[in-house]
C-alpha cells in the first residue's frame, strides 16, 4: 500500500471531500401517484469521514446516494461537494453499486481501466495505476480473467478497484457487499477500511446490516421511511481498529445497537 503513487495529494482530497446535503426533497412521479422518497434531508459529511446510511428497504438510501452522486437531481434543495453545487455526476466521486456491474466482454484489468478510457486514451501512468489498485485488492493474478470466471466477492473487488482507480475524494457505496456471504463480507469490510485509511477518501456507505455499519463507520445515519427522513445520527466513538467480536459483544456497541434497532422498528 505504501507503493501507491498518489497523483492527488491528501490535502487536495481533504479539500474536495466534503458533502453538504441542504434540506433536499425528492419526489418521483409514478403510476400510483407522487412518491415522496426524500423529505427534507439535512446532512453534512466531513472530509475523510466514513459515514453509513442505515434504514429499512425503501426509505430512500439509494435515492439519497444517487442525488449526492449527481445521477439524479433533488426536487428541491441543493447538494454541494466542497462548496460546489452538484448538477451532474461529479468527477471527484467514485461509485460502487450493489451489483458489481462489470462488462463481461472486458477482462478484469480492462474493466478497471474503463474510467480512464471513457475520458480518452489511457496514459501509461493510468495503466500503471490499474495494476497498483489490482495489487491492493489482491487481484493481480486475475488481471486477464473475465468477470464470468470470478466469484461474487472477487467481482465486487473489481468494482471497488474501478471506483478507486481515479483516486476519488468521495466514494459512494450502495450496499456493495449485500449479496455476499457473511465471511466474505467481513473480509471485504476489513479490506475496505484498510483502503480507506490509505486512500483518505470520504465514504458514504449504504447498508441495512447494523453490525456492518458499526464496524465501519464514524457516524451512522439512521433513516426512516415514507417519507424518507434522517431519524437519528449516532457517533461511533469506539477507537479503531475494531474487531467484529467487539462489535458483537462489547457493551458500548450494545447500546448503539439497541438505539439503532429501536429506531428501525
Amino acid at each position, binding site marked *: 500500500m505504501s507503493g501507491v503513487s498518489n497523483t492527488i495529494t491528501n490535502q487536495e482530497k481533504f479539500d474536495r471531500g466534503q458533502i453538504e446535503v441542504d434540506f433536499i426533497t425528492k419526489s418521483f412521479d409514478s403510476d400510483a401517484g407522487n412518491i415522496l422518497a426524500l423529505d427534507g434531508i439535512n446532512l453534512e459529511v466531513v472530509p475523510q469521514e466514513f459515514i453509513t446510511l442505515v434504514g429499512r428497504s425503501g426509505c430512500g438510501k439509494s435515492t439519497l446516494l444517487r442525488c449526492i452522486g449527481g445521477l439524479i437531481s433533488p426536487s428541491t434543495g441543493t447538494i454541494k461537494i466542497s462548496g460546489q453545487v452538484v448538477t*451532474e455526476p461529479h468527477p471527484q466521486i467514485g*461509485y460502487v*453499486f450493489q451489483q458489481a*456491474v462489470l*462488462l*463481461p*466482454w472486458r477482462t478484469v484489468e480492462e474493466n478497471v481501466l474503463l474510467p480512464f478510457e*471513457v475520458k480518452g486514451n489511457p496514459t501509461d501512468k493510468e495503466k500503471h495505476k490499474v495494476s497498483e489498485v489490482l495489487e491492493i485488492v489482491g487481484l493481480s493474478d486475475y488481471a486477464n480473467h473475465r468477470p464470468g*470466471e470470478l466469484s461474487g466477492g472477487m467481482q465486487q473487488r473489481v468494482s471497488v478497484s474501478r471506483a478507486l482507480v481515479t483516486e476519488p475524494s468521495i466514494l459512494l457505496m450502495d450496499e456493495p457487499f449485500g449479496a455476499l456471504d457473511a465471511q466474505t463480507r467481513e473480509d471485504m469490510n476489513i479490506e475496505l477500511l484498510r483502503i480507506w485509511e490509505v486512500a483518505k477518501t470520504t465514504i458514504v456507505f449504504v447498508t441495512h446490516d447494523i453490525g456492518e455499519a458499526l464496524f465501519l463507520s464514524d457516524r451512522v445515519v439512521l433513516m426512516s421511511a415514507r417519507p424518507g427522513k434522517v431519524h437519528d445520527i449516532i457517533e461511533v466513538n469506539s477507537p479503531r481498529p475494531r474487531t467484529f467480536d467487539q462489535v458483537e459483544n462489547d457493551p458500548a456497541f450494545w447500546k448503539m445497537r439497541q438505539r439503532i434497532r429501536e429506531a428501525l422498528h
Partner: protein
Amino acid sequence: MTIEINRIDGDTEAKGSFITNFSSQKLLGQFLVLVTPFLFLLIWHLIAAGTTPLILPNPYDVFMRLVSYFINGRIWPHLFMTTQEILAGFVLGSVLGLGFGTLVSESDIARKVIMPYIIVTQALPKFALAPMLVIWFGFGMAPKVIIAALIAFFPLVENTFMGLTTTPQPQLELFRALRASRITTLLKLRIPHAVPAIFSGFRVALMLSLVGAVVAEYVGANQGLGALIIVSQGTLDTELMFVAFVILTVLGLCLDWLYGLVYKIVLVKLYGKTIDDVSSSTTRLSV
C-alpha cells in the same frame, strides 16, 4: 441433464450405470448420425423406383449428373453468379440494416420518422417487385442483389435496434456516473452488448439473401442456380433441377458454417479464449 441427476444421487452404483448409459447413449447417437443419411437416400431411392424420373429422379442419377456438371465445368458460372448475388445482397442489406438500426435506436426523431417506412418495406411483398426490377435493371446481377438486400435488411434493422436498446440499466448508470459521452457509451457499452443480437440478425439475413437471390433469378436471369432451375423446368429435366437443389442446399450450409466460424472468432475476441467462457459470458450478458 443426466449427469446432474446422477451426481445428486451420489451413489456409486448409480454413477457406474450412468457411465455405461452415457457411453451406450453416445454410441447410439453417433450410429444414428451416420445412418440417417443412408436411410434418407434409401427411402428416396425406393420412392424414385416407384415413379418416373420426371417426377422423382433416382439419387444415384442425380449424383452422377452433379459430378458431370462439376467435371465439365458447366456448373461454375451458375454457382459463381448466385454466390456473388447472395453475398452482395447480404453485405448491402446488412450495412444498410446496421446503419438504420443504429440510427433509429440513437434518435427518437429518426425512429418516429423512419420506422414507419422500414415497416412498410417489411410489409411489402419484395418478390412481387422482381419483375419491375428486371424492367429497370435488366437481366444482370442488379435486381437479384436488390431483392436479396431488401429482405436481408429487416432482420438487421430489427436485431440491431433490439441489441442496442436492451443495454442493462445498471451498466448505463455506470457509464453516466463515469461521465461518459453518448458516443463513448455507444462504442464501449451498447455496441459490444448488441453483438450477439446483431450476429443472430446476420445469420437470418444470410439465409434470406440466398432465398432472395434465387427467387429473383426465377423472374429473369440467364445465369445462376435459380436460372438453372427455370431452364430445367422448361426442358422437363427434373434431374438437373435436383442437381440445383442439392447445390443450393450445400451452398446454404457452407454459408451458415462460414457465419458460425466468423461469429466464433468475434466472440472469442470479445469474451476470451475458450468456448466455455463464451457461453458463460453470453448467458451473463443476456441476464
